[in-house]
């Protein structure tokens, strides 16, 4: 029982996310996120081709335009404007966080083996493993970083995980739902990006760990 191309692409999406946790360089993180989303686009077209689902092509196109190109370009612009290159990180150092993400991958492998295999979805578990680990890794990314921008990236990784789960287990959600989710994500990223910019302007940093005390 060897892995099919679909499963390998799904796995490499998870690998991209785990490597993102290991680097505190914001620009590298954004590039890896873009690469990961490109792979997701490729996986969507593969599914669209295999199962003859036309609407997946449209979703893949929107994914490519908005999340693989649009959001990274927007985030790179924000980085240029707020002059941050690296994330200092909190609590866990980058290599330890990466190994924690590996542990999450192992846990999600065990979880995915418990799931019932959907009919006509091939092996089922590789995609589910990748999707669950992607959600966990995004959460880890949000928890272990200081800079507001990294948390946006972590949120986007989580969203990719949810999309991947829907894609591999149920051949994608209906077009309308998917478009709505994508619009929400886009607006969320825009707002939080602008918010990060405003925080930078008022406090001269975007370190969220220093925003715990409220000022009267």
């Amino acid at each position, binding site marked *: 029982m*060897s*892995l099919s191309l679909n499963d390998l692409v799904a796995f490499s999406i998870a*690998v991209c996310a785990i*490597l993102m946790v290991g680097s505190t360089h914001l620009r590298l993180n954004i590039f890896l996120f873009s690469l990961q989303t490109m792979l997701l686009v490729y996986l969507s077209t593969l599914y669209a081709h295999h199962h003859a689902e036309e609407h997946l092509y449209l979703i893949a196109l929107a994914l490519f335009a908005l999340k693989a190109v649009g959001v990274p370009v927007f985030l790179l612009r924000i980085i240029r404007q707020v002059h941050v290159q690296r994330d200092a990180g909190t609590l866990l150092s980058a290599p330890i966080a*990466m*190994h924690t993400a590996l542990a999450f*991958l192992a846990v999600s*492998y065990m979880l995915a083996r418990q799931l019932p295999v959907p009919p006509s979805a091939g092996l089922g578990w590789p995609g589910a493993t990748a999707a669950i680990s992607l959600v966990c890794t995004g959460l880890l990314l949000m928890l272990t970083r200081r800079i507001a921008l990294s948390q946006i990236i972590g949120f986007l990784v989580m969203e990719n995980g949810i999309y991947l789960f829907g894609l591999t287990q149920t051949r994608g959600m209906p077009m309308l739902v998917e478009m709505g989710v994508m619009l929400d994500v886009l607006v969320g990223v825009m707002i939080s990006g602008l918010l990060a910019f405003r925080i930078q302007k008022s406090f001269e940093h975007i370190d969220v760990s220093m925003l715990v005390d409220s000022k009267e």
Partner: protein
Amino acid sequence: MVNQLYITAFYVLFALLAPPVTLGTICKVKARLQNRIGAPLWQPIFDILKLLRKDETLSKTASWVFRFAAAINCSLAIYLVVSVPWLQPKPEWGGIDLFTFVYLLAAMRLFTLLAAMDTGSAFGAFAASREATLSFLVEPASVLSLASLGIVSNSPQLNIIFGFHNMHAFHPGLWAISGTALLLASIVELSRMPIDDPTTHLELTMVHEAMLLEASGRNLLLFEYANTLKLTVLFGLSAQCYLHLIPLPVDSRWEVYAIGSVVMLLVVAVTVAVFEALAVKLHWTKAPDFIAYAITLAVIGSILALGAGGI
């Protein structure tokens, strides 16, 4: 039978030729990228001839361990070259399993460390401590990346894992991930950039070269030659992993594999050289971060191997 003869001749020829030329290629590409002409490709061979003619100076505190270490290092390296399938097609003789391979490398390192500390030079001892730290950090990466390949091949024998009759066990993702983990691990094992800069002028910060400061003449030749052989074996194994990414037909003639592995070895050497020219040396405390990447890839490879088949 005639085929076996040709294969043996090819292997022996390239086992003699490839190590100096691989090292020469790395130096040449690096020099060109730094806008220098650089030494010719066969400069390592000239270096060997030069060292043969030189006299030797021995430290007064050095014992028999110092000379013995160089000899045993070189003989272990030669044993690795004839028994590890770093070049395909490999003649039938002398296979070893992956654990023997990794721990023979560790044995080589042990004797280098002993030689470095034997002369009583402070630089040598510093470098020995750094080398020991690096080696135990990188060990999981090299063992796990080879073990994950062993799992899908159902055998720990390197000859079977990398043998070209095993080409049909086609797991491109696994070969790519394990090959990259192995390449990163080899960069650390050989203490090249970005872990350590082998061409810097500061001996105090170096790892491998600082250990050999006291060696000279033929003793240095043995150490250097052993290191060149080790470099070729390690990069050759990563090149074999990448060669398995290309779906060559199972019944290809042996020449196809021969040309493929030689070209892939050169590709890996050039890639390493480009990487070394672009990278900056990491601060010593950042080295574990780099090794963490190798370990992560190796662990992902093992998870993939356990999930994808084998056991």
